[in-house]
Each structure stands twice: as structure tokens, then as C-alpha cells.
């Protein structure tokens, strides 16, 4: 009760002082965080002390962060595919548009944007907050200190397996998203009667550019790294207690989402222009 009250108070005072904080101070704070992020990455990518243990961890994370995300990705992809199909259909009721364009529109939206970027934003919420709170809790309960004192490189042991696991598994999630999303479009389109099955299937094969899938997978690799590393960074440097762990997991989601959107623009310009 007492500490809660105190924290409430502190939070307010921090907000007020932030308000008057000169811009250059904020700039310095930002640059410091930026530097700390790269120093952490350097620690993460140093030579593992026991590779066999890292393999075991990576396998565990593949299940925790990857396999356990299949459900949410499948459900959301299915409904997004369905909605995209219906919306395209209702916006192109004019008879001069050939019907198969509905299938084509569904395919391209799913492959280009949905399966990589939107899925990454959803994973930032699920996986990112999970990583930040797990590592953050380990920090405030001194479990990370306990590792350091044994001489274990805690940053590498905790973060590297997560990065490797998400980089290996998120492309699979992307492919699942593409398949389930297009399937959702087909179901919604044919059940609602806005398009025939033949037209839809013709549409998803029409003028297909395989490179779009490569583009989507490349984006996914970047996004996987962004989500995992930023969330782990937020968790690793938590200072305080459970309140700060909560804040760190919120920050993890917000920052990784913003960086994902930024990289989406940059990568699209580089890969599609």
C-alpha cells in the first residue's frame, strides 16, 4: 500500500520533470539507451561457454515462442483472409472488374503485408511482452545476478537462444499465415457466394510473383530479430520491482511495434523498388 502510493507519487514527479526536460537531455538519454542496446547485443553474441546447453535452451524456446504461437497466427490469418476477400468483393461489385481479382487481392494482401508485418505486430504483443516480463522478473528477483556470480554470461545464455529460436521459427509462422489466410479467404468467399471456387483459385494463381514470398520472409527475419532483441533489452535492464517489470513489457511491445513499422517502410523500399 505504502510503496504503491510512493510509486504513484514518483511516477507523477517523473512525468512533470520529463515535461520540462530540455530536448538535448532527452537526446542524450535516447543515445545512451541506443548505445546500451548495442553493448547488450555484443554480450549476447559472444562465444557460448557450453554449446550443448544452448542447444537445449534453443529447443525449449522454439516450443515456447514458436510452436505456441501457431494457434494465434492461424486464427488471425484465417479471419483476416476472410475479411479481405469480403471487402474486396463488396468494393468491386462493378461488372467491369473480373471476379478472379478478388482472389488475387486476397493473395497479395496476405503475402505482402499481412503474413509478415501484421503478424509481426501481433507477435510483438504476445512474444515481446512474454520475453520482457520473463527476463525482467529474473532481473528483479536477482536470478540474473545469481547467474553472473557463477561466471555465466547471462545475456548470452538468456537471450541468444530466444533470438535463434524466433529467427528459425517465425518464417514458418509466416508461411502458415499465408496458407491459412488464403484458405480463410476461399472459405468466406465461397460460403458467402461473392465468388465461385473456380474464380478464386484462378485468381490466387493469376500473375503470381514468387519473389513476393521471399520479400515477406526476409521482412519476417528482420522483425523476429527486432521483437526478440528489443524486448529482451527492455527486460534485461529493468531496475526496481514488479511495477517496473510491467512497464518494461509495455515498452517492449510499443518500441518493437514502432521499429517494425519503420523497418517495414525501409525494407519495402529496398526490396521492391
Amino acid at each position, binding site marked *: 500500500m505504502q510503496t504503491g502510493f510512493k510509486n504513484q507519487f514518483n511516477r507523477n514527479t517523473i512525468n512533470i520533470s520529463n515535461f520540462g526536460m530540455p530536448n538535448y537531455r532527452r537526446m542524450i538519454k535516447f543515445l545512451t539507451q541506443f548505445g546500451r542496446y548495442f553493448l547488450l547485443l555484443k554480450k549476447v553474441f559472444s562465444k557460448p*561457454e*557450453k554449446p550443448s546447453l544452448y542447444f537445449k535452451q534453443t529447443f525449449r524456446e522454439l516450443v515456447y515462442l514458436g510452436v505456441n504461437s501457431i494457434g494465434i497466427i492461424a486464427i488471425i490469418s484465417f479471419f483476416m483472409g476472410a475479411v479481405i476477400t469480403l471487402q474486396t468483393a463488396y468494393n468491386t461489385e462493378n461488372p467491369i472488374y473480373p471476379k478472379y481479382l478478388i482472389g488475387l487481392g486476397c493473395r497479395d494482401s496476405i503475402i505482402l503485408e499481412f503474413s509478415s508485418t501484421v503478424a509481426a505486430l501481433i507477435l510483438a504483443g504476445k512474444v515481446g511482452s512474454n520475453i520482457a516480463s520473463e527476463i525482467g522478473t529474473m532481473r528483479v528477483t536477482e536470478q540474473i545476478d545469481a547467474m*553472473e556470480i557463477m*561466471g555465466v554470461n547471462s545475456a548470452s545464455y538468456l537471450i541468444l537462444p530466444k533470438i535463434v529460436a524466433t529467427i528459425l521459427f517465425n518464417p514458418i509462422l509466416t508461411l502458415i499465415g499465408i496458407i491459412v489466410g488464403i484458405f480463410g479467404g476461399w472459405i468466406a468467399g465461397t460460403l458467402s457466394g461473392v465468388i465461385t471456387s473456380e474464380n478464386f483459385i484462378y485468381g490466387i494463381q493469376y500473375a503470381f510473383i514468387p519473389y513476393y514470398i521471399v520479400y515477406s520472409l526476409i521482412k519476417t527475419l528482420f522483425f523476429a530479430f527486432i521483437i526478440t532483441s528489443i524486448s529482451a533489452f527492455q527486460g534485461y535492464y529493468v531496475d526496481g520491482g514488479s511495477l517496473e517489470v510491467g512497464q518494461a513489457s509495455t515498452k517492449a511491445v510499443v518500441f518493437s511495434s514502432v521499429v517494425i513499422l519503420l523497418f517495414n517502410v525501409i525494407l519495402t523500399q529496398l526490396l521492391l523498388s
Partner: protein
Amino acid sequence: MIRIVKLNKSFNGKPVLQNISVTFEPGKTNLIIGRSGSGKTVLLKSIVGLHEIDSGEIWYENTLFNKLDFIGKKRIRSEMGMLFQGSALFDSLTVEQNVMFPLDMFSDKTPDEKLERVNFCLNRVDIHDANALFPSELSGGMKKRVAIARAIALNPKYLFCDEPNSGLDPITAILIDALIKELTEEYSMTTIINTHDMNSVMEIGEKIVFISEGVKCWEGNKNEILNSDCDSLNDFVFANSLAKKLRASNK
């Protein structure tokens, strides 16, 4: 032996430890005592290198620890065991895996030998039939004991304990103190214990350092502590009414 020379440590310009010099000897239970917020935890964490110090020297035998790089520190850390204020067991691992963790990381033993060592350590701290439990399923005292087992798994030369018996009932507290003292003598470790519990001080205080507001005020053993002329130490020692009555009856 651990020797500290003129250690200073501050947080954001606010001094927390000032000019602390002290020597801790092997085979003895060395106690750091002081009121809450006096800087005990910061001192212990500075000694093991979890806090970067502002100035001063920390010697482990003949090695200047605070000037070592990561690899050098790692070598000395392989000889350290530490018990944290909140036990700091790994939540996602069972009791057995927790004690196994340092062995997995740093020993080349076979799985059977490691398991044997784990069971030996758990027996030593009187934990039985709990190998498959997770830390959330243990009581506070059991967590401390498992944490001690993990800390001694690699036969450390140096053992650090931050409030090993805070939050425990008086009997369990004394058992844990006695266990640490036994282990210290058995393996001739250099043990440093943080505490503000006068019971522990009188039970196992072979060397006691008293810290008040980040400054070392007094140093001695449990027999000398009742007759010191340091005011803040007397306030600390005779804070409870039982101790006051004892002193009155002695006079």
C-alpha cells in the same frame, strides 16, 4: 582471504559506502551488520563485482579483483558461491536442475556424477524428496537451503550470504546459521554474511564488521560486541528490550 582497501561507492553522486577497509579470513564466519539501508547489500555486491566501485581495491588472495577483465573475473567467480536476499532460485527449473545448473555449466563430470553431487549437496542442507519440485512449491526456509546447496555445488572457496535468515522463524534461522558455519569450517571457505539479526551475531559472529550509513564504525568478535564504546553500535545491539534487560542485569 578477501581484503578490501579504501572502498568507495556512490549511486548518482550520492555516497553509499565510504572509505571501507577490512580483511575477511578463511575458515571463519565473517559478519557484516548494520541497520536497514546502511549499505550491507551494496558492500557485498561490490565485493563480488555485481556493482562497479568508484575507487578502492578488492583483493582475493593476491589478485586485484576489481581491475580484472571478464575472463579474469570469471576464473575467480568459479570459486564463489552466493546466497541472495531473496534466494534467487531459477523459477523455470526444478530443485534438482537448480543445483545442477552450475555443474552443467562448469564441470566436466558425467551426468551420473553430477546427480550424485546434487543429491549430496541437497542432503547436506537437509532437503529430501524435493528434487522434482519447483521453487514456487517450496517454503521460504527450504528455498534458502536449496540456494545454499546451489551455492556450494562447485565447492567454492568463497561464500557470500545476504541475510540468510531474514524472514525465518528463530529455530530455522539458527539452523541455517549453524549450517553455514559448519560448511565454512568443513571446507575452510572465506564466508561473508550480511545480517541485522542479533541472534546470528551472538551465535556465529567470529568476526563482525559494523556499518552505519556507509561507514565502518566498529570491528571485533561476538565477545567484544557487548562492551564496545561505539554509540551507534550500542543502539543497534541493545535495540530490543531483552538485550537491555540483559545488560542491566550484568551491571
